[in-house]
């Protein structure tokens, strides 16, 4: 999942980026409203964390312009303004959530996860595909035999495929949502990650979960429609 952080405080911006990156997100971070708007328009982020008080262009103006330009990414507003009217103003301007500074990083992370899930129409934090359970909150994959040892990057690929279950996800889509702007993406990076996931799932007794659509991308079928399920029903 790829996030954009727009925050003028260097320390807060870097800490958030560090924490979210360590949590498996691809993170782009900018310091002012103009840059934030430019980044948000250029890339379809899974979530934008937007400070309200920003130099150049304030957060609410960024949000307003972004929404008017058709931007659909969920937006989490961060603000030192804590009054009800400020929250209402932010939410009415098109934000999906509003978090008042100071906050616990765990709360921000939980809200980021929830917003990412909801934007994909997934209400539950854990997704089950046959014998596999992808716990988006704990950021781990589990089978009946235990935890599947995926790397953060591999889990991010699996998470994106799970959240888009039933839809063919192209390599470009995966690259855009898994890697941040500063990351050098090798041509076979996604394929390598998919291979790694398949190998580790296979070792856990799960095969055929991720289907390859030649020339199009990858697909995980929704629960009950996977080949494994179909075989089981047959």
């Amino acid at each position, binding site marked *: 999942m790829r996030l954009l952080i727009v925050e*003028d*405080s260097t*320390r*807060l911006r870097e*800490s*958030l980026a*560090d*924490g979210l990156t*360590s949590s498996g997100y691809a993170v782009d971070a900018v*310091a002012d409203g103009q840059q934030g708007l430019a980044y948000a328009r250029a890339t379809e982020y899974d979530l934008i964390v937007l400070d309200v*008080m920003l*130099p*150049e262009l304030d957060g609410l103006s960024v949000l307003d312009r972004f929404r008017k330009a058709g931007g659909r990414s969920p937006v989490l507003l*961060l603000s*030192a*303004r*804590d009054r009800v009217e400020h929250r209402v103003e932010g939410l009415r301007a098109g934000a999906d959530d509003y978090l*008042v*500074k*100071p*906050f*616990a*990083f*765990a709360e*921000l992370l939980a809200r980021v996860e929830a917003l990412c899930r909801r934007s994909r129409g997934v209400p539950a934090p854990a997704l089950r595909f046959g014998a596999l359970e992808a716990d988006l909150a704990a950021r781990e994959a589990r089978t009946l035999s235990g935890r599947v040892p995926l790397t953060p990057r591999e889990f991010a690929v699996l998470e994106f495929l799970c959240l888009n279950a039933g839809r063919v996800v192209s390599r470009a889509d995966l690259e855009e949502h898994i890697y941040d702007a500063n990351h050098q993406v090798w041509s076979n990076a996604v394929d390598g990650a998919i291979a790694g996931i398949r190998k580790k799932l296979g070792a856990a007794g799960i095969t055929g979960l991720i289907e390859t659509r030649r020339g199009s991308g990858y697909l995980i079928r929704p629960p009950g429609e996977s080949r494994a399920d179909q075989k089981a029903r047959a």
Partner: protein
Amino acid sequence: MTSIRASLLTWILGGVAGAQVVAGVAIAVIAQAGLTSLHDAALLARARTFASLVTDEHDPIEFDYYGPLGESNLGVLVRVGTADGTVIAASPEWPETAGNPAGTRLAPGEHRFLDTRTADGRVARRLVLYSTASTDPEAPPEDRGRNTPIIVEVIGDSAPVARAHRALLVALGLGGAIGLIAAFVAIWLGVGRALVPLARLRDAVDRIDPESRVQGALGSAQTVELRPIVGALDALLARLKAAVDRERRMTSSIAHELRTPIAELRTLTDVAARWPEPERQRRAVGQAADIAREMQSLLEAVLALARAGEPASSPQEAAGEILPLVVSILERSQAARSGVGALCVISGDESARWDIPKGAAQILIRNLLENALEYTPPAAQGGFVAIRVIPGAVCARLEVENGPVSLTPEQAGLLFEPFWRADEARSDRNHRGLGLSIVAAIADAHGLTRSAVLMAHRRLVISIGM
């Protein structure tokens, strides 16, 4: 604690009692004089009657009264005699100690009164009337008499006068006491009634909240006397509300200012605790120390602002002439030393003075100058700072003009607001937006006016003084 009712009762009753005593004494004295005068008049009338009964148509002179001359018969004592001291007739109780006024040179018809005592010791009034023996105008000339000078003396008991006087005094005393009691009751009730508006005022003040006014709460219950008090209370409420609002805004601003550094601190520590890698932890500790320093700097700036509005606790040296202060502060100014490069011009009257404490004046001038120097571009880009010291009839004025500045007229009006920063400075933690607030607080505390006006060609003029 004093009570208005008790105080009014004491004063009004005291006044009434005092007036009663003075009036009572006056009445008693006048009554005494009046009663004595009436008594004397009665004695004089009796004496003249007795004098008319003395005839000298025949020798010897006769007193033609044939009844007993005792006090029980006449009601007074009488003695009739000639000017040479011969007693013609006298009451048997006539006191021997009364003496004989014979030989006194008084014209016929004249009289005089004396205080005396009867033989049995009663206080009495004695009248000595000089007259002449009566004659018969119709008698032949040889029988008309010789107009012999006579002295008629009458002594009347003063007891009736004293009794009447005592009765009057008793009546006055009783009347005064009843009057005092009536005055007490009337004053008690009257003061109670007069204090009702105060009770209503108290109820109104109890009822009002910080947003309302006594005037509205009291409505038609206010009196002419209460109106100025209500006005003063409402003005006080308005001032209090403004002060509370200012404090509330200040607290809110401080909380707002603290939110971002605390958010930084929490995120740093949360992330470092969740992924405890040595490099991340080392970085977090370093940044946490920076945040602590910035928060301390904020705290010191807030305290400086709070102290700027306080009156000096002890007498301090007055600022005196402004121009030398400006020059010395400008020389020492950090901004000036760091070579901002704006063209800086100082002009003004060397005699212009401020009477505010020197320490406060120095902080005010330093903050003004550093703010101007900080936000003025270098001279190469047209930046300039002009400092003018202008003498005034009451108080000198210090004007600091700088430009070109990136402010709107509305933003210029916000320059004295605590924590307000132009957008370009908002992310800079070294600028708290308190420098000009401190200037404003010092100016307000010492009765100096202040203004910040954006002029043509993006020139900002901040003026402090009168």
